[in-house]
Structure formats: C-alpha cells, structure tokens
C-alpha cells in the first residue's frame, strides 16, 4: 500500500460509503411512491412495501465487507459512530413517543417512520466526530 494506493483506498472508501446506500434509498423511494400513487392491494401491496428489503440486505453485506477490509483505527471509528448514533436515535424516538403520550404528536407517525433517517444522520455525525478525534 504505497501513498498512491493508500489515497486511492480512502477515495474508494469515501465513494463506497456514500454510494452503497444508493440502491436501497432508491428502492425505498420507488416503493413509497408506488404505494402512494398506484395504491396496489392485497399481496401485491405487501410485495411493493417490502421491495427495499433485499436492497437493504445487500447494503448491509457490502458495508460489512468494507468494515472487514478496514484497519483497526477505522473499525474503532465505525464503532464510535454507531455508539453515538444508536443511543441518539433511541433518544429521539423516545422524545417523540413521550410527546405523543402527552398528546403532542408533532407529525403523524413520525417516531417509527423517522427511525432510519435519524440513525443515518446520527451515524454520519458520529463518524465525523470520531474521525476528527482519532484520525
């Protein structure tokens, strides 16, 4: 791994991290639009709703491959990012749940629908915090 290939590896990592979730997000978007506009019924509705699932499985598989190729510092950064993202996501959902319990639901269905979004945002924040501190 000379300087050139090291730089290329990090460029690859950055590209992979930002593009891996692409197919999953696209499938989720298509599924959401299809459910809203085409309004299928019965088993087809279930199938359309679950379209993002295999894409998410592929994303997790590829992400794990990326982690396994990483060195120990990068693994620690990823662990810290997850350690930040997980409790913050839970706390955010809890806040919405508590507000809902108090009859103050900001947006209908927010707590669970937003979980994935909170997690991604907090993961990116956590990763940047960990990288600034460790790398």
């Amino acid at each position, binding site marked *: *791994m*000379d*300087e050139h290939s*090291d730089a290329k*590896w*990090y460029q690859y990592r950055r590209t992979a991290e930002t593009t891996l979730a692409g197919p999953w997000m696209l499938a989720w978007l298509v599924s959401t639009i299809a459910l809203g506009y085409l309004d299928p019924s019965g088993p087809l509705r279930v199938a359309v709703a679950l379209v993002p699932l295999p894409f998410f499985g592929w994303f997790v598989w590829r992400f794990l491959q990326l982690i396994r190729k990483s*060195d*120990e*510092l*990068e693994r*620690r950064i990823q662990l810290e990012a997850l350690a930040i993202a997980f409790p913050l996501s839970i706390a955010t959902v809890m806040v919405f749940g508590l507000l809902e319990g108090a009859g103050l639901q900001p947006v209908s269905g927010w707590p669970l629908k937003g979980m994935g979004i909170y997690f991604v945002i907090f993961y990116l924040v956590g990763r940047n915090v960990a990288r600034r*501190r*460790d*790398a």
Partner: protein
Amino acid sequence: MPVNNTVRRLRTSHEWSQAELASRLDVSRQTVNAIEGGRYEPSLSLALKIAKLFGKSVEEIFEL
C-alpha cells in the same frame, strides 16, 4: 493515562514516509499518523508488529 511512543522518531531515522510505514504494517497512513500523534493507541498485535519491524521490544517504543 496517555501512552507515549517513539514511532515518529524511529520512522524518520529509517527515512520512511508515513505511507511507507503504513504499507509495511498493512494499515492506513491515517492510522500511522494517529499513533505518532498519540491520538490512537494501537492494539497489542499492531504494537508487536511495529516493535518487530524496528527490531525493538514493545517497551522500548511504547511507555506510560
């Protein structure tokens, strides 16, 4: 308690770049940079690898 190390001094005495040392240790340049800067304490296996590479004991390179 921070762990001090002499990795930077050893590396420069061998006239290696961070990337070159990273290549020899099979880690990223960022990891070497973080170890040299004292921001990251390597695992035991990496510390042993560093010691072996420089022909020294771990205690000679890393100290509390």
